């Protein structure tokens, strides 16, 4: 393993320690070493925003803790759901008495742990509502939306939900905005190499040189097909062919496009990919209101790329455009 680690069993602890000291302008530790919160949380009068998930997806999830975004995050082992206790402690850290929205991805472990955490919090008198991200198109058929997993679209869900809360929205309004954001969002990924969990020490799947896996998941879940490696333009077109008809997106739509590397992808190549995405969308009469290109939601050291597209309406546009400040997402006031 060509990796920059110490003890493979301590990678998450040591990552959190480093993150907390590097970004002490935004985040602070809590009594639970697996819960990181915004330095001003809980914010009086504001609905709390919580998320969480397995580690290895930097900047997700801790990278989205910050101003007008997420208030507290539960941190799990690499690719493994945080504990119910971590979600519970994150909910408590975020609650100002206005209720807490837990906005997270559709994975069996996370669903179970959030469910138990929400029950515990309810016993303390905290009102908890949840929104499950399910933006990954290849992970299930369109008539099985509830089986789809959450991927990079979660970033846009946090952006919308966090902004709605910051603008004074009630818990109902925050949850509705986050739900709308994810309902308007579709994603797909392409993987070119596998990734290795440090404590496992070897990749748990293979992608042959010269091949690519279309529809790959954020933990290396196999995609819908394996085929010969294509030029960047063709990859971009294939991603759009999967994403656009599913919502569907069409002529006249205004969208947010989020292109993310999967961990080992040169940012240069992400822009080559985005270039073609924007060209095709323009040809189809779809305008990009705001693009994000970079490493927003990764999968350890996987080489690959994800495309996320969100269809905007007036409310989502306002929420996406609101200023914010975190390690992973920084937008100045317009």
């Amino acid at each position, binding site marked *: 393993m060509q990796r920059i680690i110490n003890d493979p069993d301590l990678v998450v602890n040591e990552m959190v320690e480093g993150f907390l000291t590097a970004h002490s302008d935004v985040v602070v530790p809590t009594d639970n070493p697996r819960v990181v919160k915004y330095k001003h949380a809980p914010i009086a009068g504001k609905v709390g925003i919580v998320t969480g998930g397995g580690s290895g997806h930097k900047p997700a999830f801790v990278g989205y803790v910050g101003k007008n975004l997420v208030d507290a995050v539960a941190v799990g082992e690499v690719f493994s759901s945080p504990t119910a206790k971590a979600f519970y402690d994150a909910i408590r850290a975020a609650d100002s008495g206005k209720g807490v929205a837990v906005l997270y991805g559709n994975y069996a472990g996370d669903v179970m742990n959030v469910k138990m955490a929400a029950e515990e919090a309810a016993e303390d008198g905290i009102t908890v509502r949840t929104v499950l991200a399910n933006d990954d198109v290849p992970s299930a058929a369109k008539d099985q939306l509830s089986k789809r997993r959450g991927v990079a679209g979660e970033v846009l869900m946090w952006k919308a939900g966090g902004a709605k809360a910051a603008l004074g929205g009630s818990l109902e309004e925050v949850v509705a905005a986050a739900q709308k954001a994810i309902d308007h969002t579709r994603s797909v990924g392409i993987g070119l190499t596998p990734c290795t969990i440090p*404590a496992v020490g070897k990749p748990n799947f293979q992608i042959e040189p010269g091949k690519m896996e279309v529809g790959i998941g954020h933990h290396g*879940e196999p995609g819908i097909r394996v085929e010969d490696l294509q030029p960047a333009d063709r990859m971009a077109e294939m991603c759009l062919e999967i994403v656009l008809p599913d919502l569907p997106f069409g002529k006249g739509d205004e969208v947010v496009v989020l292109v993310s590397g999967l961990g080992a992808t040169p940012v240069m190549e992400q822009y080559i990919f985005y270039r073609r995405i924007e060209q095709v969308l323009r040809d189809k009469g779809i305008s990009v209101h705001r693009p994000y290109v970079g490493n927003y939601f990764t999968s350890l050291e996987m080489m690959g790329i994800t495309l996320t597209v969100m269809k905007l309406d007036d409310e989502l546009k306002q929420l996406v455009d609101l200023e914010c400040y975190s390690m992973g997402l920084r937008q100045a006031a317009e």
Partner: protein
Amino acid sequence: MSESFSNTDGRVIVDRLIAVIRENKVYLSEIDGKIGDGDHGINMDKGFQLCASRLEEGMSMSEALRVLGRTLLLEIGGSMGPLYGQFFKAMAAASKEAERVDAAVVQSMLEAGYAAIRELGEAKPGDKTLVDTLAPAAAALAAAVNRGAFLTEALDAMVESAEAGWKSTEDLVAKVGRSSRLGERSRGVLDAGATSCYLMLKAMAENMKELAA
């Protein structure tokens, strides 16, 4: 008199579960790696070792099972933390009033454990999960108790059905959990959760038989 053992002497059952997970740490991760992310053995072992550090002298079987359940539930995360956490907590609760553990007590423990898992997850028999081991094991145990079998015979019936259920997962297509996204590609591989469930039920049965002898 029916076969039984003292709950007070039963902490060794949890010690044995901890040892079985340690012995199979690599094996469980290898199975998981074929259709999952390859950390099942690692996460299980981490939880069971944490539990080992919290067990105290003189604990009964029920008390030790409760420590195991709480440790997995609160500190392991993933899917297996809550599932096995609730499983062992329910087994502890179902047996804590019993001074002697006989076939009927074990039956109520396994039924309570299975009920806790059904409450939490959506898996049904045939979905390629630990339920494929647990459901037939619980059914065989109940059938044996109903026909008047004593502990040894009832446990043997349980293990036999657990093994058949575990092996059946090789030819199943995953319906829930992360490997369900693989569809047909999940066929031909044993399920990691069904495997750990079988190994633990088998170890528990062997230990109970020794205690009752």
